[in-house]
């Protein structure tokens, strides 16, 4: 009961972990290369959530200095995640470029089909 109450109170972390596991599952379980990349993107997005959620301080306002306020939300996770998002975009772009080249070379983007075509002489 206590655990369930904690989980409901922290539902945002439950969503984060769910996205993380979904992303990883898609990468492993799907053979289509584009779908793998989508799974990877979902996995990376869940990590962004993992950083930003604790950054919100309860009772904190926007992180702009003002004499009327004493508690501010932490802006550092947002900065880190901007960097991580850029890295994620670059990875996704590179992955998709590779998929385009693979499609040109093999005529398909299904991983098992590609492996089969390599095995034949």
């Amino acid at each position, binding site marked *: 009961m206590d655990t369930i109450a904690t989980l409901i109170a922290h539902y945002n972390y439950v969503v984060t972990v769910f996205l993380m596991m979904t992303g990883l599952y898609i990468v492993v379980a799907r053979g289509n290369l584009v779908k793998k990349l989508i799974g990877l993107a979902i996995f990376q997005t869940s*990590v962004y959530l*993992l950083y930003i959620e604790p950054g919100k301080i309860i009772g904190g306002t926007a992180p702009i200095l003002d004499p009327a306020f004493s508690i501010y939300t932490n802006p550092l996770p947002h900065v880190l995640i901007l960097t991580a998002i850029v890295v994620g975009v670059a*990875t996704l772009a*590179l992955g998709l470029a*590779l998929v385009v080249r693979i499609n040109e070379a093999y005529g398909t983007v299904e991983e098992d089909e590609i492996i089969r075509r390599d095995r034949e002489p």
Partner: protein
Amino acid sequence: MSAVAQHLPALQVVVPLLGAVLVAFLRRGGPAFAIALAVSWAMPAIAVALLWQVLHTGTISYALGGWEPPFGIEYRVDILNAFVLVLVSGVGAVTMPYAYRSVGFEIPEERRAWFYCMYLLCLAGLLGITVTGDAFNAFVFLEISSLATYVLIALGPDRRALLAAFQYLIMGTIGATFYVIGVGLLYLLTGSLNLADVAVRLEPAWADHARTIVAALAFITVGISLKLALFPLHAWLPNAYAYAPSWVTAFLSATATKVAIYLLIRYFFSIFGVSIDFRHLPVTEIVIALSVAAMLIASLIAVFETDVKRMLAYSSVAQIGYITLGIGLVNQAGLTGGLVHVVNHAVMKAVLFLALGAIFFRAGTVKLDELAGIGRRMPLTMTAFTLAGFSLVGTPGTVGFISKWYLAVGALDRGWWLLVAVIVASSMIALIYVGRVLEVAWLRAPSPQSGKASEPPLAMLLPVAVMAVATVYFGIDTEWTAGIAGAAAKALLGGLR
């Protein structure tokens, strides 16, 4: 001059980055190579200067942009860093002349400038991971070097290089993301991203948040292990090494995994080990178990490979097992063995892959049966290959023996005789797969493919020869390799709880 000397840690990363941008603007293969060569030769100068400074005046702490740590990003150079910096920049410098002919042979004209651009980005990323003292900065450089590596591998002549690069991209990104999760947990625990600061702040957090600290350690270890190809997470390595251009395989085998190993050592000994007693963390036992698996299983797989490049790739996985064994032993001799094997393996594998690249350049193949008798047609290249092969086995008088000696002493210091038996057994298996190649190359009649081979051009032969001589020289005079590794190990172990 002093103004430049002050900013050496930053220059180590900035110069290759600017070089990459310059090459991207120039777009022509010839000038691109010239810039890459100039940058590659400048990097060891900076690295050696940093090592000199560290050996004489102690750890260098450089605040990037003048922002003081722990709020600003800090570049922190101590003996361990400087050692790895010299290795990475040295390998790049020595092998760059080789790249001109090798790249000219394997990569089409219009892609050569992009190749050198990616190489410079990869170099900047690798040097950046080594020199930084900030956890998230390490992630950024890790991804810079990894993305550049994926492109370098995809430039391979065979179309299977594309799928190999894609699979490496998926696994590498998962690894980097695991690392980021670990860093996120550390940030939540300590409120800091500066590695030295986190080490100090982790200690009081152990009482209430032991589970989170262990979770952070687990995520970081798994994430970095994916990058360094520790045993069950090595699946990307054989394909990536087998299908990448020859020079890329040589460079990556000597540098990429080594830098990931450096990062793991940094986290184990300088961050987690400083605040938490290793006996509370089961991580060293797991690392030793996986290392033993790597040493035996990967060596056995190598025995059955018919493609020599793939065989050497599996051999790399086994050799990385030696290094992680040294890390897992957590004593002076063991850690020295692991660290000195970082350098020794880099030099050995670079010679092997470069020699193989020269053979591919002349004979057009790397399949074992098609390389019969190549020793008679390319004697100097095969001699270098033979020397490095003997070093891989651990013949006394070569560098391989030095690493295995330290590792065996480290295992004996812990009283684990079985580990010494495993080291010897794995060396015997290495003798089988190396011996197979030597027998085919030297003792058989030349095949049609090796019949048309001859010695490679001097630009390719010289780096191979220089590094082959190094495998013997550093096996006899170990002051610069084992001496510095020992000093680094002492510094790391001295900080442990």
